[in-house]
């Protein structure tokens, strides 16, 4: 066990180094002394990527722990679909030049508030009648997500094609036009959520033993599940409103972290997954911008790799189930 702890420490140091290297590379590669123009812009993008990456990693790991499942992500709760519906509604009813689009604060606030309220209502409704298995919650979430997605598609089909073109920008995660002040605002929410959740990490470790063993060990299981669901919803809402939906991203980093650090300790798993997010997002963005010179977007690459990894995970799980 000692050896395993040591090995994990070493891996963590390597990940931190890798994260720092990608950040420095992204900020300083080809800067050509443009300290006034490029430097602050690149910095803000890196900060945005770090915040969203950590938020998505954190929310995915806790979501997978409370659902006892390593293939689901919080996106099955339908928050991504809701985000798309909100944006589509705004374009549909008010148009692409209305203040709901142009004023980024307003747009951000509407999206976050709507998603958090939706999530809370959802949990209130489902938990009101006492014990329902969490799978019931997931099923309802999936159905709701599909329903919202269908409405969104319907509206997008009949919308003005010009509006649709500008709406498309919202459909894919993008770090290319994140608003500077918004990043700090979102970052503050994310940091507060992280600090609040950090005290509960040891209880989450116990949750991996299953509901009955966790209650036996004095964890208030049902209450903790609700708290964690709300925390992960807030994180997903903020990061989605900041950069747009990244479906597979959380799945990749969470599972890589489980494989990389063979441990049950959530503190290690979450810090690891967060660092991997930073490496993947910043490193990936570096490749997209400098090597592909913006010929593709990062989210396309992430969804491509994420999709392949997802299939790999499914195959692996089905093999181990035999």
């Amino acid at each position, binding site marked *: 066990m000692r050896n395993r702890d040591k090995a994990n420490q070493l891996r963590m140091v390597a990940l931190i180094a890798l994260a720092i290297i990608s950040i420095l590379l992204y900020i300083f590669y080809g800067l050509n002394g443009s300290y006034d123009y490029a430097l602050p812009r690149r910095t803000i993008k890196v900060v945005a990527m770090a915040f969203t990456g950590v938020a998505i990693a954190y929310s995915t790991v806790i979501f997978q722990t409370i659902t006892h499942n*390593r293939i689901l992500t919080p996106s099955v709760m339908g928050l991504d679909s809701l985000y798309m519906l909100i944006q589509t509604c705004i374009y549909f009813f008010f148009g692409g030049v209305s203040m709901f689009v142009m004023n980024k604060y307003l747009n951000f606030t509407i999206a976050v508030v709507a998603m958090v309220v939706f999530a809370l209502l959802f949990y209130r409704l489902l938990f009101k009648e006492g014990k329902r298995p969490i799978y019931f919650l997931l099923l309802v979430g999936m159905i709701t997500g599909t329903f919202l997605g269908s409405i969104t598609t319907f509206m997008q089909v009949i919308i003005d094609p010009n509006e649709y073109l500008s709406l498309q920008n919202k459909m894919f995660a993008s770090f290319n036009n994140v608003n500077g002040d918004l990043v700090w605002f979102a970052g503050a929410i994310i940091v507060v959520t992280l600090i609040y959740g950090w005290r509960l990490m040891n209880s989450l*470790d116990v949750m991996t033993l299953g509901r*009955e063993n966790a*209650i*036996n*060990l*004095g*964890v208030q299981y049902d209450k903790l599940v609700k708290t964690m669901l709300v925390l992960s919803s807030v994180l997903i809402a903020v990061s989605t409103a900041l950069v747009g939906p990244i479906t597979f991203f959380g799945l990749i980093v969470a599972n890589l972290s489980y494989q990389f650090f*063979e441990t049950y300790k959530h503190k290690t798993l979450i810090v690891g997954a967060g660092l991997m997010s930073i490496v993947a997002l910043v490193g990936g963005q570096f490749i997209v911008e400098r090597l592909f010179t913006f010929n593709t977007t990062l989210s396309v690459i992430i969804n491509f790799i994420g999709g392949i990894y997802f299939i790999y995970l499914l195959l692996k799980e089905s093999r181990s189930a035999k």
Partner: protein
Amino acid sequence: MIQVKELTKKYGSKSVVENVTVDIQPGMITSFIGPNGAGKSTLLSMVSRLLNADTGEVLLDKADVRRWKSDEFAKRVSILKQSNYMNVRLTIRELVAFGRFPYTKGRLNDEDNVKVDEALAYMNLEDLQHNFLDELSGGQRQRAFIAMVIAQDTEYILLDEPLNNLDMKHSVQIMKILRKLVDELGKTVVIVLHDINFASVYSDRIVALKDGRVVKDGPTHDIINSEALKDIYDMDIPVQEQNGCRICVYFNS
């Protein structure tokens, strides 16, 4: 002392446990026996606050278990259920160390490590302690989970069919350890058992349930006789005495 008062649990309109009143005597092994579906496991789940009762109450030291703070209760009463599936790889030692969680909230000090060592020694798991749970046989896994409960160091230990899927040797091994916990460390053990002969040989008291109700409750020698067993199981079961143990020969009755 744990007192169960007029406890009822219904699923839909069907009562699984109906109006059960039982006192758990401290310093003894109490076995819950009865046919399938009698409500033994449900009763044990309610006593250990894994399940909420519809009506009635369970009292630990005269206070309702639902009023107890969750971590304080976990220092007094422990429960081990039958199925223990998990999707992380843990070593035996890591699992047993979880037993200290009610005291430490995850940060083990030297005293906790001593308790973990003692629990491992008690279950003869020292040599295996760095093995992963998924590499173990059913009997070894079961011993590992019992070691976790021992490390939890509670007065009351509740076990739901701990002999499930174990062979004779391991079953006897586990029952002997439970006996030792009661006789040497003064614990109180409540156990749901399927095999009536284990209940007869190892327990001090027996509570027999049938259709959610208590049909017999008393010292073991009052329950293990043909008349009482007829009431519980609707079977004519001859009882034979063998080296001071009463054995129920139910195989061809």
